[in-house]
């Protein structure tokens, strides 16, 4: 499905499609039989080069950003403003000794970071990164993405269990419990988008948001159910990727390093890479579902290439992740799970009902008013209800059996 170009100017159309044109030019050198496979291979190579590059940039971004939030400078020795820090980090992690504990299960210990990185990379195959720039346009693309996300949970468990370390195992169990709980919320908030669009295919979801009334786009975040869904999705995404304030499984002050305590050198770098890639991938999905993917925010800005908008929105989401990490305190495990099952999940189910109401009320101002009132009232009511049970009485102790 070829999307229509945003502007009429052929220079900007070519700039928008520059990677597609580059790919077809490179593939044109090969015989016709090999061309489809070569095209896909080039796309894979592009993804494998671009996203780890962005990962390197993000590590510096994060450390500098956190430093500034904490009133310090952050790394500034390697290169101008510390920008070459990832190179130093990379060399360090490649040359560090790879220590495997003696009683660890060597095969599983080796496979865990591999399984994580492979499944996280697979998720990028269905994200539409620009007009016509999706690697595989699957009919059930969203389901494929969530299937790959579900498979990462097992690799977290493998890492924690194979290390034969109580801290690792505890961290892994907590991480898996947290990931399972918030996975349900992630899925349900995406179902609202699927209901309105009528398709599981991500390029179609973006195309449905790429229409404009006047100068304003039809992004789903600008609707009441879309805003509520996006907030729930953002909370679930933060918890899925074990980012602060949900980072108890890898909390440095509680569990040493959680499930990747016993990993050193390159394997630890792979876990680090996997975590950041998961952040990119889930931000990419969030922008595709709610923020309009590669579409421009105002209709006269469509001349700017679509891939710039996509990556810009993803980097904005990463900035919000870093901001939250520097600002919010960590949630305790039971607070986290309570939050998931007693507030976020019921609210997401309500959002699903409100989405159905939106769809069936038809066009007009009535549906805006009704949906906004229902969602706001539910939020206030459930928030008040959640706070009511908080009484701080005598501390009770429960001992491990």
């Amino acid at each position: 499905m070829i999307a229509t170009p945003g502007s009429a100017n052929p220079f900007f159309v070519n700039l928008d499609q520059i990677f597609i044109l580059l790919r077809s030019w490179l593939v044109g050198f090969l015989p016709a039989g090999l061309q489809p496979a070569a095209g896909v291979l080039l796309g894979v190579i592009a993804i494998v080069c671009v996203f780890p590059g962005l990962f390197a940039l993000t590590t510096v971004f994060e450390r500098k950003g956190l430093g500034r939030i904490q009133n310090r400078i952050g790394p500034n020795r390697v290169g101008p403003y510390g920008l070459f820090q990832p190179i130093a980090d990379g060399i360090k992690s490649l040359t560090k000794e790879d220590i495997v504990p003696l009683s660890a299960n060597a095969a599983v210990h080796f496979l865990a970071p591999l399984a994580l990185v492979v499944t996280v990379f697979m998720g990028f195959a269905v994200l539409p990164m620009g007009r016509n720039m999706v690697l595989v346009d699957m009919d059930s693309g969203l389901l494929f993405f969530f299937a790959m996300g579900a498979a990462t949970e097992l690799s977290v468990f493998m890492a924690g269990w194979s290390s034969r370390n109580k801290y690792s195992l505890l961290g892994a169990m907590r991480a898996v419990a947290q990931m399972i709980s918030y996975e349900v919320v992630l899925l349900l908030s995406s179902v609202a988008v699927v209901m309105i669009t009528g398709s599981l295919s991500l390029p179609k979801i973006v195309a449905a948001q790429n229409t404009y009334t006047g100068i304003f786009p039809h992004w789903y975040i600008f609707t009441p159910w879309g805003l509520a869904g996006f907030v729930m999705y953002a909370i679930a995404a933060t918890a899925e990727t074990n980012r602060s304030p949900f980072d108890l499984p890898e909390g440095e002050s509680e569990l040493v390093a959680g499930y990747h305590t016993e990993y050193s050198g390159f394997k630890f770098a792979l876990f680090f890479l996997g975590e950041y890639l998961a952040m990119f991938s889930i931000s990419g999905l969030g922008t595709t579902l709610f923020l309009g993917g590669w579409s421009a925010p105002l209709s006269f800005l469509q001349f700017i290439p679509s891939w710039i908008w996509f990556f810009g929105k993803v980097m904005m989401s990463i900035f919000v992740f870093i901001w939250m990490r520097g600002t919010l305190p960590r949630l305790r495990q039971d607070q986290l799970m309570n939050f998931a099952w007693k507030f976020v999940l019921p609210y997401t189910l309500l959002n699903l009902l409100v989405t159905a109401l939106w769809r069936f009320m038809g066009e007009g101002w009535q549906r805006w008013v009704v949906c906004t009132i229902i969602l706001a009232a539910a939020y206030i009511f459930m928030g008040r209800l959640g706070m009511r049970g908080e009484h701080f009485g005598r501390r009770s102790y429960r001992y491990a059996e």
Partner: protein
Amino acid sequence: MTPIFYLLAAVTLAGGLAAVLFKHLVHCALAVTVAFAGLALLFLQLDAQFAGFAQILVYIGAVAILIVFAILLTRGADLPKHGVFSGSWPLGLIIAAAVFAVIGWAVLASVSAIPQQNAVPSVSVHDIGMALVGRYVLPLEILALLLTAATIGAVIVAMHEKARPQ
């Protein structure tokens, strides 16, 4: 038979065999995950994309993790003293072999009646959705009820008992 089919079948069967033969329970759980993954790929080979991805999402993403949690909560990591196979294991083996022999004979004897392969069916998610709320709406609603009952039941069964006042 295509080489891909042989590879996937070998992976699936090896995973299944490893799952029932390994001594350490967590290894069995990981091996059965490999078997689930092999089956998902076989579904994809049979042009059933939705079923394949649902298999990965549900089995690997939920059932395998459930099995692993149960193993850890029941201290399955400690090996039992008397060995992992029960006393009557030859009988079990014979029964399993007999079942395979019967089914295998039935399949091979009816080879001539098995239909040839059709063209690739164009099944879209839209068709599955329409079928689920159209023709199969009653099983869907019953399934929803069943899943609700199973969720509530599992929580109640596995909950810690409240200390009874003596």
